[in-house]
């Protein structure tokens, strides 16, 4: 063993340390001079599989790392494999007289390195796998997106096709209904007018034909309602349904529905009860057409599937909500069917009841649009209960504070050729305490104004004999400055007389309310 002078460390301690280091680390060494002749070596040098050297051996060609070595340069080799297959690190340390070549077991490092490499390889595999899966996911997502677009397009085409076809059916059906209506009326009038000339056989002939026409009319109406359902389904699918709420008297609406449904119940000899609770406001704000459609659909279904007993309908209003319950003693619906009943085009099998399978789908969607909910419960053999609720805000009657107060009644001349409008306006103005005179054309208006004075003239524009335009011109030419309020259905009554060119004091667009008139009068009449 070579003793090394290490400052401050005794030889005894150095030796024990060296002994420890050599044994612990299984360090082997060889000391060679500058001519590459072995001067000294550790006993365990051969343990690494190296050729056995003896002192004095020339090692220049003995081991790979000795070949061409510069004994004056420090050199550390990366992990090399010994002849016995061990992994070692080799360090060449120049010292005085030569070089110490140390060999240290690196099997642990090698093993660690292998494990790292393996982990890196596995990681690389995982990353590749992940990339593959991501690519597959992206592809699947893209395929799904494409499929969705195709489905949307197919749905749109289906809806468009249904709407188009329904439209085509609607037009001729409307004609059939219109003409059969007219034929019915013509037959009735003919029978009445010709009753003196007709004998028993003739009467029977006409009655039979009336019945045929009535049948054709009813069938057409039924077909039309099926077509309307298809159209509605299309509109719902493409979000085109527009609600038109307006003030509605619930009692009147429910009574109207009862009138429509009762003949169906009478024909089947089943009982019908339709009631609405007395505790309700006089008017609520709903789309009466759509509410009527829902009631007719649901009550109609109840009647269709009830052969004994009857159908009861109850409507209640509370806190701006309308609650409706429809109970029947019909066939009932199984649990399986209850789950499917609201699907479009689905119909229960084996009932023999006709329809498109759309009524309930459409009804539920309309109720949903109206801020409500539909529920169905049923027991086979006992009957079904359908309930729905929807928003039905009450309408508060308003008091108009701008109604003028006079010591004497307001005297108004109303020039309006449409008798329907005139009747209503006269009555409404009269009931508001207005003294109203009605004329039917501009010429009569001029004559009336010449005979008596009025506080205000309400003038329609398009009238026979003399129009409102001419009447106003004449009044002004005569120096009559009574305030004139023009009433028109549009701002451009005809192309040659834009309204703004008329010498009037105010302008109201029809439909005109009494309050509109009184507000204007309050501003114009001194």
């Amino acid at each position: 063993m070579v003793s090394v002078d290490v400052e401050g460390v005794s030889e005894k301690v150095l030796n024990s340390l060296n002994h420890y280091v050599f044994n612990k680390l299984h360090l082997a060494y060889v000391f060679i001079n500058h001519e590459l002749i072995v001067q000294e070596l550790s006993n365990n040098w051969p343990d690494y599989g190296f050729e056995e050297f003896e002192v004095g051996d020339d090692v220049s060609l003995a081991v790979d790392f000795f070949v061409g070595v510069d004994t004056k340069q420090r050199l550390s080799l990366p992990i090399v494999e010994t002849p016995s297959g061990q992994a070692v690190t080799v360090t060449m340390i120049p010292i005085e007289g030569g070089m110490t070549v140390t060999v240290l077991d690196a099997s642990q490092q090698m093993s660690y390195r292998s494990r790292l490499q393996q982990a890196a390889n596995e990681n690389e595999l995982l990353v590749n796998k992940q990339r593959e899966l991501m690519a597959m996911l992206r592809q699947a997502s893209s395929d799904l997106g494409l499929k969705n677009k195709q489905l949307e397009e197919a749905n749109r085409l289906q809806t468009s096709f249904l709407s188009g076809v329904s439209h085509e059916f609607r037009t001729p059906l409307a004609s059939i209904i219109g003409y059969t209506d007219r034929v019915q009326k013509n037959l009735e009038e003919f029978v009445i007018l010709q009753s003196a000339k007709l004998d028993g056989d003739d009467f029977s002939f006409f009655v039979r034909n009336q019945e045929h026409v009535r049948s054709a009319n009813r069938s057409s109406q039924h077909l039309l309602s099926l077509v309307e359902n298809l159209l509605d389904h299309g509109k719902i699918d493409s979000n085109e349904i527009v609600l038109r709420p307006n003030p509605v008297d619930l009692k009147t609406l429910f009574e109207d529905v009862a009138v429509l449904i009762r003949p169906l119940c009478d024909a089947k000899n089943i009982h019908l009860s339709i009631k609405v609770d007395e505790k309700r406001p006089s008017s609520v704000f709903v789309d009466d057409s759509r509410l009527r459609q829902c009631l007719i659909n649901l009550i109609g279904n109840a009647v269709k599937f009830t052969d004994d007993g009857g159908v009861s309908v109850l409507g209640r209003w509370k806190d701006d909500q309308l609650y409706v319950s429809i109970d029947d003693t019909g066939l009932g619906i199984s649990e399986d069917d209850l789950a499917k009943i609201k699907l479009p085009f689905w119909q229960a099998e084996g009932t023999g009841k006709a329809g498109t399978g759309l009524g309930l789908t459409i009804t539920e969607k309309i109720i949903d649009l109206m801020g409500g909910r539909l529920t169905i419960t049923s027991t086979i053999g006992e009957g079904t209960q359908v309930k729905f609720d929807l928003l039905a805000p009450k309408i508060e009657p308003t008091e108009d504070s701008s109604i003028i107060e006079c010591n004497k009644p307001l005297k108004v001349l109303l020039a309006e050729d449409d008798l329907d409008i005139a009747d209503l306006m006269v009555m409404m103005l009269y009931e508001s305490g207005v003294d109203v005179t009605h004329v039917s054309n501009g010429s009569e208006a001029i004559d009336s104004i010449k005979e008596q004075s009025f506080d205000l003239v309400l003038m329609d524009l398009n009238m026979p004999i003399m129009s409102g335009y001419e009447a106003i011109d004449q009044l002004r030419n005569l120096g009559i400055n009574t305030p004139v309020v023009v009433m028109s259905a549009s701002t451009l009554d005809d192309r040659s007389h834009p309204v703004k060119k008329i010498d009037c004091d105010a302008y109201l667009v029809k439909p005109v309310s009494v309050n509109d008139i009184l507000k204007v009068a309050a501003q114009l009449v001194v």
Partner: protein
Amino acid sequence: MSSMNINAIKARYKASFGEKKAIVDDYRDKLFNSSSEDLPVLYEQIHADLHKLAGSLGMYGYDQLAEQARLGMSFALAQDHSSLDESLINLSLLFIEKS
């Protein structure tokens, strides 16, 4: 505001829907049967009548019908035969529905 008298007037108006529908249906017939030389005059007549109808329907609160009548007016003014025919059909159907 409503009284028996006003209600009676409103009921009478509603009862006239059959006649109004007949006028609309009649116009449809004429549209179908008129020669091209007669059409311009027919369009003006239809426009004028729909104008009146829109006015009274609106006054009586039949907004949907009034809107349909106004639509017909615009088609009559534009002399759009097929659109006018369709709006007359819709008007006719609405009269049935509302009466």
